[in-house]
């Protein structure tokens, strides 16, 4: 086990300023203190070499968890053991073993080429010349950025910059890499390249914790998913278990020669009715088996076309995100 988190609690103190003019003036002299519980006792553990998707809606506590795990924030309570370190207590030693990519915070320097920023990191992490060159050459080749690293960062596209962010985060051979929305705003080709890179590095034994709102990232990369909501863990299992979280539901599209029969029957939920002959529905096969459903439709009408698919992961996530609301 490389990461062990037990009952992690983080409470922020904030001030209510009010929105009316009177409240704003009063808040200049007397502010109402408000305590926000960002994390309410999160626990999980991660093994070496795992690639875990860490999901949750905005404000769920994902970034706060990540910030505690990277040693940026002190928690209010709880225990964290990562490679034998407590991140906020032994920050300097600990962070030399981790890397981080923040999709919305760049480690590169805007006006100068990424390679200059790589050299600054070389000094900061005391990377020897041989390892630096080896890692740089390998990652530059893998991400095909040979011609880009010497161009000023401001001239690079978002996708090109993100590739360089990954190099920056991994030059020092980190054992764990925290990714906070690494593919945000990228086109499909750039996303694909980044995902391939992550999988390649994961094969080499690097542990990844991926925070994202892009479920494509999760489906393509993560074998395990942790979902947090309202500062609590609401799901921690494999991606397959996540898919079956809503039970045995399928997404069914049907077309008929004659008008559709009434679909208000147990186990069937009409998602959309495109015409009198076409509909998309959610079928709970534990209540209504597929062959029985086909029989039902054929008896009342005549089936001309039908497709059965797994429910998209979005449905599961939406369900988890809306769970445990106060």
């Amino acid at each position, binding site marked *: 086990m490389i990461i062990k988190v037990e009952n992690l609690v983080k409470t922020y103190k904030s001030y209510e300023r009010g929105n009316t003019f009177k409240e704003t003036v009063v808040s200049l002299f007397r502010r109402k203190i408000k305590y926000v519980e960002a994390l309410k006792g999160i626990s999980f553990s991660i093994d070496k070499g795992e690639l875990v998707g860490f999901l949750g809606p905005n404000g769920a506590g994902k970034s706060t968890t990540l*910030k505690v795990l990277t*040693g940026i924030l002190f928690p209010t309570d709880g225990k964290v053991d990562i490679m034998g370190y407590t991140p906020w207590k032994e920050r*300097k030693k600990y962070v030399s073993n981790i890397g981080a990519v923040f999709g919305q*915070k*760049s480690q590169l*320097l805007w006006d*100068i080429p990424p390679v*200059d920023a790589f050299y600054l990191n070389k*000094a*900061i992490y005391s990377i020897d010349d041989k390892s630096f060159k080896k890692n740089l050459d390998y990652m530059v080749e893998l991400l095909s950025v040979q011609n880009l690293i010497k161009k000023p960062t401001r001239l690079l596209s978002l996708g090109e910059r993100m590739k360089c962010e990954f190099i920056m985060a991994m030059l020092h051979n980190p054992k764990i890499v925290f990714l906070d929305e690494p593919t945000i705003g990228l086109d499909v080709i750039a996303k694909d390249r980044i995902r391939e890179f992550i999988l390649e590095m994961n094969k080499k034994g690097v542990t990844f914790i991926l925070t994202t709102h892009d479920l494509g990232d999760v489906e393509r990369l993560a074998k395990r998913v942790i979902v947090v909501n309202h500062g609590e863990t609401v799901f921690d299992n494999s991606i397959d278990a996540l898919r079956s979280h809503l039970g045995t539901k399928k997404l069914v599209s049907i077309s008929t020669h004659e008008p559709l029969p009434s679909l208000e029957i147990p186990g069937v939920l009409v998602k959309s009715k495109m015409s009198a002959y076409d509909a998309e529905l959610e079928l709970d096969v534990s209540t209504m088996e597929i062959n029985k459903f086909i029989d039902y439709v054929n008896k009342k009408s005549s089936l001309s076309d039908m497709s059965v698919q797994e429910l998209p992961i979005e449905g599961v996530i939406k369900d988890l995100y809306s769970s445990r609301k106060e």
Partner: protein
Amino acid sequence: MITAMYIHLQGIKTALAERMAYRGDFFMSTFIMLIVEFLVPLVTYLIYANGASFPGWDMYEVLMVQAIFLLSRGIAFPFFFGMVWNTIERVREGTFDLILIKPRSVLHMAIVTGFDAEDVGKFFGGAILFIVSIVNVPFPGLLEWVTFLALFCVSLIVMFGFALILSGLGIVWIGNYRVYEIFFSVTNFGMYPASIFSKSIQTIITSILPIAMLGFIPASAMLGRPAEGTFFSVIISFVFLSICLLFWKTMLKRYTSAGG
């Protein structure tokens, strides 16, 4: 220590490369910095040119106080005072987090990534004024030079203390650039001979908040007329630095980061 120096040099190199990306702006800013630094000495010149004076001090002696103040600021601003601006900006944008994930002292990283190349202009301004003053006062002996250099180092320690306070405030007082105005208003007392102020102000700037150390005390040593209570001010300067360091660390613990 060697690694820290190497990181510092690499940081300076990177900051220079970054600033040089816009050469025109860089040279213009440096030149403006140099010109702006001459404003207070210019006022001093005008005072003396019109027959007025600071009692007990001739013009070049006063200019010496101001030159040393500017030299101290000219070293502090490019080399470590940039951490104030750097901290305020980074905390506001949320990129202070990136400093915290580096395996180095947060303070060191705040200084390294805050190197402010164009502020070198302040140093040149101070150096020019220093040369103008030194050739117009009796040339100091070896003892005066040694004492001056030692006190000048202490003046940098006081400057560092101020940088720590302002940077610490920037951690919890999000996006407040007024801290510079506070700094300039308070430290301006150090640009004049302390003897022109009332006794209570003299006590404050030498024994409580060692602002006199920024210009007046090292200049007095250079001019061969050591200020009263110099040794005590040196001790106070170190106490000041310790308090500032403690303050900065306390503020760092209160860092809450920006939303994700």
